[in-house]
């Protein structure tokens, strides 16, 4: 049961009793039906077991890094494999005994030891280069195990690995994506923006069932990544000649493939959003497709080395898209009871406002007009939301026969 629901229930039931909606006894029965469990990550046992597992992984990693030449290669590998299999077996036993939260720590330990095993092979055989390939192997084999179990800690670890891998992949100029980005640094922000949309869509695909927590994690990671990518793109003109730096104007095929992949993922993810009217349900996907369209436009202009005026226009478009997506997040978050979306919408607006303040220094009258118009719009929107809330509350409170 979602902690927000049980908490809300405890806040609301006294007023239900006061207004005669339910009797005091009925309220107690309802509360007993939904015991307050607290957020899963606030349970000390989860924090300590996951932290403990991570610390043991680090201990084994350092032990491996110490590198005893006297120990035969196969003995080293067998040692890590024994720890790995033992950790997972221990996790399964604890879970079977109803101590699943403690078992999470052992699963994290097992997942981390798999990475240690990969690193050990690199050490034994003096393998240099291709570090991102090693991390790819780790998370690609870790996530299937995490999902079939399922273990939220292992899933989080796997996606953390995927995020680290993406960073390494982008920063390595010898990879197909890194090669594009080294040809023009601004494409790095485009790639991260597309990856953010892809991660959000992958999160939405998890739905509201068993993998709800994974959805929340990935959606937030995606929204953070999009924001971090969009802000510098909005400042391309201010960054001077940096946006046009780079040696080549060839088509960045890898970046375009990533944009296409993100577009397909958003389309598919829209079917996994909460049930609503089709037009309403298409809203979040449409907002994020707008982001992808913008990223595509930036890519085209970077290839064609467009004039500064074009980048000025793209800067304004960036501002508008950030605002539109932020408002969509707030509205849909309120509609579908997803408080994280609301929080991110507010953060987006705040960050966008600061970025625009920096961008518009020098044209203060225009900036003033823009801020005033946006501020009034946001205040009006807040008022409209409050009216909507009151209307819904009044409708709920009214006796059925009077409707």
């Amino acid at each position, binding site marked *: 049961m979602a902690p927000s629901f049980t908490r809300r229930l405890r806040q609301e039931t006294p007023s239900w009793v006061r207004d005669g909606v339910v009797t005091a006894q009925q309220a107690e029965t309802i509360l007993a039906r939904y015991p307050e469990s607290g957020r899963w990550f606030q349970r000390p046992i989860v924090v300590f077991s996951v932290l403990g597992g991570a610390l043991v992984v680090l201990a084994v990693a350092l032990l491996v890094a110490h*590198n005893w030449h006297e120990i035969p290669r196969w003995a080293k590998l067998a040692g890590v494999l024994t720890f790995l*299999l033992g950790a997972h077996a221990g996790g399964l036993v604890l879970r079977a005994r109803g101590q699943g939260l403690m078992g999470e720590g052992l699963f994290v330990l097992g997942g981390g030891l798999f990475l240690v095993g990969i690193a050990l092979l690199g050490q034994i055989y003096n393998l*240099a280069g291709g570090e991102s390939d090693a991390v790819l192997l780790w998370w690609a084999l870790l996530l299937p195990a995490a999902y079939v179990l399922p273990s939220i800690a292992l899933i989080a670890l796997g996606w953390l690995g995927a995020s680290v891998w993406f960073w390494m992949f982008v920063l390595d100029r010898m990879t197909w994506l890194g090669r594009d980005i080294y040809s023009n640094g601004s494409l790095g922000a485009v790639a991260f923006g597309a990856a953010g949309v892809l991660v959000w869509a992958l999160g939405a695909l998890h739905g509201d069932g068993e993998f709800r927590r994974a959805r929340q994690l990935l959606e937030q990671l995606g929204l953070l990544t999009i924001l971090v990518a969009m802000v510098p793109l909005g400042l391309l003109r201010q960054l001077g000649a940096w946006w046009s730096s780079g040696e080549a104007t060839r088509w960045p095929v890898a970046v375009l493939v990533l944009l296409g992949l993100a577009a397909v993922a958003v389309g598919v993810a829209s079917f996994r959003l909460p049930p609503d009217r089709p037009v309403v349900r298409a809203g979040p996907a449409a907002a994020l497709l707008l982001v992808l369209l913008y990223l595509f436009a930036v890519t085209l202009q970077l290839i064609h080395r467009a004039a500064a005026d074009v980048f000025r226009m793209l800067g304004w478009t960036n501002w508008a898209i950030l605002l539109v997506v932020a408002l969509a997040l707030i509205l849909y978050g309120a509609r579908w009871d997803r408080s994280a979306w609301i929080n991110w919408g507010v953060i987006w607006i705040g960050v966008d406002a600061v970025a625009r303040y920096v961008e518009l220094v020098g044209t203060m009258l225009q900036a003033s007009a823009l801020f005033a118009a946006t501020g009034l719009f946001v205040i009006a929107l807040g008022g409209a939301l409050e009216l909507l809330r009151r209307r819904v509350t009044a409708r709920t409170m009214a006796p059925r026969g009077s409707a």
Partner: protein
Amino acid sequence: MRRGLFIAAVVLQALVLVGWSASLEWELASAVRIRLEVVQRDPRDLLRGDYVWLQYVIADIPLGTIAGGRPDYGDRVWVTLAPQDNVYALAAASRAPVAPGPGQRVIVGRVQTLSTTARGPEVHIVYGIERLYMPEGRGVLSRGGKFEAEIALAAGGRPFLTRVFVDGRPYP
């Protein structure tokens, strides 16, 4: 059912590690040993420990000597080596696989950087043998002396760094 799938997934991880290790052992066992001259060495990897960073004389290749035109970042390059004063030195380079002449060997690397030096445009190649992992505290070689690396070259040109020689003696 799920428990079984999880066990299968974990066993797959273990099998990948064992299989990978076995394939590396297989390649090493059938590889020929050559020596390359080393011009630079040096840090610490948090997962794999102390290592000596090696840069090979054959890593920097004049762009003009690469057959098949200018390569891009990450492209593979087949470098032909010929024996010269107890070590193997650069003889030719190509963007396509080549058959080595008598006594020659072929090593495969990937383009890391393209730069222009006093000697003209050059390509820096990495071979995946630039790190020699050492026991803790022994990852720094003394300056001076002649450094050579023993490389096991697999049939397809994939190199494995097996050990380092300082003034002809194995280190450490």
